[in-house]
């Protein structure tokens, strides 16, 4: 990299800039466990739930089946979760771009497998790992074609986010049961 300015300071600045241009530090998993994050998510979710309820009430209320309503709730929860990720992860961006993209059949660029002597590169990823990694990639939105290291990073963030989502939704459900006057169910399920 040519540095036109012979000044030592700018060289250091270039070094700093280059470090910034490198891939950002991976999203910290700790944030999904903080109370603040969960509260922010909960309030966003409650607003989204009110919108869902309003839309299902004004629309064909009788036609709205339980399944479609719970589906709307699920999608609202996922979208709020993806928004909480602030665009740092692939799975969150994929959710926000709309799930229909995932279902569309994208033309796959057929990459022929390298024929020839078994290279050391191939042996590092035995087929068993490859298939499992592919299954994993299908489970996480937007991560189908990701190479293994990026996939594993996305997966750990996705799992932490999902667990927070579950914690938040459980709290909201409990609160709603209390407010609604209905007897709150005895069990409280939570992964942790």
């Amino acid at each position, binding site marked *: 990299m040519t540095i036109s300015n012979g000044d030592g300071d700018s060289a250091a600045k270039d070094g700093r800039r280059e470090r910034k241009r490198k891939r950002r530090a991976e999203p910290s998993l700790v944030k999904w466990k903080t109370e603040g994050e969960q509260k922010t998510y909960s309030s966003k979710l409650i607003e989204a739930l009110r919108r869902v309820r309003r839309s299902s009430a004004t629309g064909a209320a009788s036609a709205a089946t*339980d399944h479609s309503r719970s589906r709307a709730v699920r999608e609202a929860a996922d979208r709020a979760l993806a928004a909480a990720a602030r665009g740092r992860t692939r799975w969150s961006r994929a959710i926000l771009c709309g799930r229909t993209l995932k279902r569309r059949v994208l033309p796959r660029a057929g990459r022929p497998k390298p024929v020839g002597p078994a290279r050391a590169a191939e042996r590092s990823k035995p087929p068993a790992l490859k298939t499992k990694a592919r299954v994993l990639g299908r489970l996480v939105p937007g991560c189908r074609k990701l190479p293994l290291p990026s996939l594993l990073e996305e997966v750990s963030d996705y799992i932490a986010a999902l667990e927070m989502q579950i914690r938040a*939704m459980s709290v909201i459900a409990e609160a709603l049961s209390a407010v609604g006057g*209905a007897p709150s169910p005895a069990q409280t399920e939570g992964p942790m």
Partner: protein
Amino acid sequence: MSSRRSRLRQSGSTRITDEQINELISKLQSVLPEARRGGNDRVSAAKVLQETCSHIRRLHREVDDLSERLSELLDSADLNSAQAAFIRSLLM
């Protein structure tokens, strides 16, 4: 990391070392619920991936169940703005 370049490339992409993969896999293993057993080396990478898949499916199922429960509660409860504020205060 010069070994990365000196090895044969597949389709132009840089090869990922075994070490990197093992590191990521062990990091993944630490977030799984069954991470309590010692001697993590004994668990193979395939097993960790398998566990991860099951864990994610389990989480998805929980979210679905919670969504169902929430949608039922939304239906029965009258979520006017006063109550929404009350719920929010419960959470804060």
